């Protein structure tokens, strides 16, 4: 396989930190911690998200698995409905894990798990003010993305489809608009179901992809982790290569002129 070293071929950098891969993984939903460990290894990822839960609900081994994998832990605020809850959870994550990075989730309801724009922005402003490196999970809304960037977020993480749905990128146009709206890295979060979804996200100009259920709930999570890593690389390189323009009409790739049996040239 070839090595590209051209401009734009560098690593994903968030808040000044260069990451070893443009694929980020979640840690939830795996059949076992062993599956998680193997998926982390197969993916080559440098970042894994975790939730914060009361100790009775958080079996001890997860941290060891993640620590052994040598990846950066990214605590999330999953399950928070208000800015206040999210801020408190972020602070707990910082204390527990010794990182000021936080994947900020503030959801509007338990059914759709979609972000609440108002509370999200409020929480982002608060956490940036407290020195956090904030990566907000957001709707694929360029205007909100620009507000989050203006609030000091280190990246934005628009959703492709509802969390855990595996529906892919329901509105590619919106994701492309988010990409155009901000200068910080754009990480596609939620919705990825398979490798072509990850490739598509990168082709839309995203700087990275976070996958969770797509890996954890695949028949073979480690194999899917590898597949997504390839998909991210494929989409990234295709984006850089500059795709051919699509056109409605056919266009021959073999010339018609000079066919044997045809008329003279």
């Amino acid at each position: 396989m070839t090595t590209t070293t051209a401009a734009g071929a560098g690593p994903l950098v968030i808040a000044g930190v260069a990451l070893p891969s443009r694929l980020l993984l979640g840690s939830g939903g795996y059949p076992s911690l062993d599956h998680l460990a193997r998926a982390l290894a197969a993916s080559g990822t440098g970042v894994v998200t975790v939730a914060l839960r009361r100790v009775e609900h958080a079996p001890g081994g997860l941290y060891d698995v993640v620590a052994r994998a040598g990846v950066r832990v990214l605590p999330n605020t999953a399950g928070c409905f208000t800015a206040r809850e999210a801020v408190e959870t972020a602070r707990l994550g910082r204390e527990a894990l010794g990182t000021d990075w936080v994947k900020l989730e503030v959801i509007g309801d338990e059914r759709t798990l979609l972000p609440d724009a108002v509370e999200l922005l409020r929480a982002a402003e608060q956490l940036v003010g407290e020195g956090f490196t904030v990566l907000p999970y957001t709707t694929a809304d360029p205007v909100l993305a620009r507000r989050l960037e203006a609030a000091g977020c280190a990246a934005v993480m628009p959703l492709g489809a509802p969390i855990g749905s595996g529906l892919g990128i329901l509105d590619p146009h919106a994701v492309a608009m988010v990409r155009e709206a901000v200068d910080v890295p754009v990480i596609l979060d939620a919705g990825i179901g398979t490798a072509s979804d990850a490739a598509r996200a990168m082709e839309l100009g995203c700087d990275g992809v976070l996958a969770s259920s797509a890996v954890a709930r695949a028949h073979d999570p480690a194999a899917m982790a590898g597949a997504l890593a390839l998909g991210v690389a494929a989409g990234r390189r295709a984006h850089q290569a500059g795709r051919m323009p699509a056109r409605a009409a056919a266009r021959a790739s073999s010339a018609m002129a000079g066919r044997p049996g045809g008329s003279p040239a």
Partner: protein
Amino acid sequence: MRATVNGAERSLPPGACVVDVLRACGIGEDERALAVAVDGEVVPRTAWGGTRVPDGARVEVVRPAAGG
């Protein structure tokens, strides 16, 4: 004295510190990746031994869990 630890009421000896709460919950204070908040404020690990838990306090003891 009483406190609500992770949502459940517990009785604690008067003057209990955060570290006493952890012990009462059967959690070793050396365990990695723990965080504690008392009444919504995080108590840093270095202060576990010296921070009293007020009567009626709400204490949260968390650690990383599987998540996306």
